[in-house]
């Protein structure tokens, strides 16, 4: 199958107008000794029907499971409105909105996204997206370094271990020094943070709810930092939690970053997702990535445009705030349409998630499976199960993705699973899971 609409006759005439004999002549700048003549060693081309079948079969090699797991990727219901509108090809086949006169659709939606995310995070500035939650955290750390020039960062052990790995990669490349503060009782102890601070500390990074699902006392950490130079960076990987919990910004976070996949984007085996980066207004000129601003057109009509571009790589080059160019714009559009559709009802959805996770907690408790600590949680929590990995694998055979084993990341939680519950885990599904689990535990 080819997508080239040029006929043989066209080709001949075009070559004649150019003044060459063959297409090969157009490649004469490539030294002859390295020019290839044969076909590439790829499978032979196929028709659309065959491709459809091939990809369908490949997709079916993945087991469809009833998911009771999060860990930074949350399976929520995606209303068809989100798919149908995002699939309008004026949106998805457009480039970055560098020509604002023909890009008001993208620009307006991103401006709305900046508004909604700023409100949910309790900040004043949100950019037009980062690659994912992990890279948004790494960029938040680099932004903090630009702000106060301090390269020592204190990181809570409750930050998603994958995010800490990415932070450590970016940190190594930028000579940052990262200090990890272990959790106690499933949460960050603010006094432990305090004891790790020194004059060189540029930022404290906390995630809430943290990787283990526990809600952190952000206010207490912010109080410790009050009056000092260090920035408080709060990461959020389940953004729905911000519809129920006090916003990190209102509790004293200087920068709020993380993952907004849960808003209208599928789990899609880990991507494309939607990193968000929000901050207090004083970071406006230090932000990485694109920002949309409101302005007017030549006739005074309301219009939107990419702004403060002198921060960006295509203008500032080696002195840019970041190298980011292509972002996750369409994922941000999905999130924005999702938020516009749910509106203030987003809080009802958050309450429902919390209540369902309570139902799951109760059902598991009846089987003697309980959390190892009693920190408050939103829709994700840790349970202690003997032979955790075997239990998870046995449930996978029955069609459930029940939890994520924690032994690799938290040695003290070697017999524990991180489980999650969203509105896609109906009460009947929870009952069915509990029944399978009971059968496995008693066998």
């Amino acid at each position, binding site marked *: 199958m080819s997508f080239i609409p040029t006929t043989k006759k066209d080709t001949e005439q075009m070559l004649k107008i150019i003044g060459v004999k063959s297409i090969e002549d157009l490649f004469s700048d490539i030294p002859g000794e390295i020019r290839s003549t044969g076909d590439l060693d790829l499978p032979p081309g196929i028709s659309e029907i065959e491709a459809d079948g091939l990809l369908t079969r490949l997709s079916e090699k993945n087991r469809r499971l009833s998911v009771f797991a999060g860990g930074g990727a949350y399976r929520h219901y995606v209303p068809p409105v989100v798919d149908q509108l995002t699939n309008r090809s004026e949106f998805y086949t457009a480039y970055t909105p560098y020509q604002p006169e023909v890009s008001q659709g993208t620009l307006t939606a991103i401006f709305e996204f*900046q508004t909604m995310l700023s409100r949910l995070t309790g900040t004043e500035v949100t950019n037009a997206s980062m690659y994912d939650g992990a890279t948004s955290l790494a960029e938040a750390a680099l932004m903090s370094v630009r702000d106060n020039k301090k390269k020592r960062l204190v990181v809570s052990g409750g930050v998603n271990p994958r995010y800490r790995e990415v932070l450590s990669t970016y940190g190594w490349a930028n000579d940052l020094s990262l200090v990890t503060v272990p959790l106690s009782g499933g949460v960050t102890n603010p006094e432990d943070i305090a004891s790790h601070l020194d004059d060189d500390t540029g930022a404290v990074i906390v995630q809430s709810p943290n990787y283990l699902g526990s809600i952190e006392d952000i206010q207490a950490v912010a109080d410790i930092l009050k009056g000092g130079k260090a920035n408080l960076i709060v990461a959020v990987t389940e953004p729905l939690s911000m519809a129920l919990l006090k916003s990190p910004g209102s509790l004293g976070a200087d920068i709020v970053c993380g993952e907004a996949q849960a808003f209208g984007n599928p789990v899609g085996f880990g991507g494309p997702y939607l990193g968000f980066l929000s901050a207090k207004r004083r970071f406006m000129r230090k932000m990485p990535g694109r920002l949309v601003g409101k302005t007017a057109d030549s006739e005074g009509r309301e219009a939107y445009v990419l702004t403060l571009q002198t921060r960006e790589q295509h203008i500032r080059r080696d002195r840019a705030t970041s190298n980011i160019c292509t972002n996750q714009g369409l994922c941000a559009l999905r999130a924005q349409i999702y938020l516009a559709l749910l509106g203030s009802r987003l809080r009802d959805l958050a309450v429902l998630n919390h209540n369902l996770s309570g139902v799951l907690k109760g059902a598991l408790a009846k089987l003697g499976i309980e959390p190892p600590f009693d920190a408050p949680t939103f829709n994700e929590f840790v349970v202690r199960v003997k032979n955790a990995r075997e239990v998870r694998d046995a449930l996978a055979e029955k069609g459930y993705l029940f939890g994520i084993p924690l032994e690799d990341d938290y040695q003290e939680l070697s017999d524990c699973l991180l489980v999650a519950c969203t509105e896609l885990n109906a009460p009947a599904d929870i009952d069915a899971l509990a029944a399978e689990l009971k059968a496995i535990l008693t066998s």
Partner: protein
Amino acid sequence: MNTPGVSGWEPPRWDIPESDDIPKKYLNDGIDLPDAGEVDVVRHYTKLSTMNFGVDSGMYPLGSCTMKYNPKIDEKTASLPGFASLHPDTPDALSQGALELLYELGGYLCRITGMDRFTLAPAAGAHGELSGVMVIRKYFEKLGEKRTTILIPDSAHGTNPASVTMCGFDVKEVPSSETGDVDVAALSAMMDESVAAMMLTSPNTLGLFDRNILTISKILKDHGALFYCDGANLNAVMGKAAVTDMGFDLMHINLHKTFSTPHGGGGPGSGPLGVTKRLEPFLPVPLVDRKGDTYFLDTDRPDSIGRVHAFYGNFLVCVKAYTYIRMLGGDGVRKVAEHAVLNANYLMHRLKEVYDLPIDRTCMHEFVLSDKGIGNHVTTNDIAKRILDYGYHAPTVYFPLLIAGAMMIEPTETESRATLDRFVEVMGEIRKQADDDPELVKTAPHTTPVGRVDAVTAARKPVLTHDDIE
């Protein structure tokens, strides 16, 4: 738009108990998001879509961006539930289809470029570049050599120097010759043992294949430096020359350019990073590998730079690129390059009769015109805006920086001759207007959803949310 009490959503009516176990000090007392009914939400975003211009709206000759047609089948395959609903923490044994796809796609990219191994984790071209520069840093760290500088030609994309400094290296700029190749004498003079690598877009950002490529790679090799290929322009050479044969050691590819995955109004893209054998140990984790008939995620790679993405990159974008490559096959992929180059040369020959062509030689997939010689103070920006009035997107303007008033045009292989001919007519007409009725051009666009947008005020008094307004 805010109609409190009306909603486009309601929760299921399940009879479940309230869990009021979160301490009150953590709870908010409501959120400030506007409400609207479903129909109003749908109409709002439908209206916004009509104010946008995509490849499906018309030709998008945006140089260096490869805005080719995005086959619709790709959208279908990427939304198959077996892919879209697959949780990234699914055990390897139950996600074999996804792992197989990633493994195979990496293999196809190796065969197209000559590289030995690809990681699909980088989420965009610049992310691939950054990962690549990290690989360069790790390589010399492992060798115990302290190299501090990376060379970049003056025609490079802005992401190149930005990626370099984001990884702790210094940037030094290599000049281009008058005919658009790297100035080899200048390069030689700049070489010493502090140079870790040179980054070069191939074909370069003037749309030209650097005729000295083998000399450049030899100079670098002689000094123990690595050669990085910015693969943004890979569309021009697929099947015509292997990137490794040009002497490159590592490269990134933009799946959203070369392999037709849509640009999404700014993203998501995908920026796989490929390397030759000796750099393989440094690639980010995890890498998809195969043992017998089983695919698995390999995290046990002690010399790796580490993780660069929370999971495995923009997987669903990879599904689209995989679909595209399978449909084209080896023959089809080569034809892409041939027709991209044919279309560009055809357009260049037709347009150089009416516009200044600063470097007049056979181009690859794109070429650069300038506004030199156009009177009445009509600029490249004016011409770009006037093009919008005719239902075409504007070219890339004022890039590359070494050509004043640059207009960089890349038609891609998916435009028909008829479309190209109409574009030539339009460009001719605009050129005439610049002489006869310059105001018409200088005040363009006239037919777009909004008129020329005031970017200066936006930057001077930034309004970044609706709350800044109120």
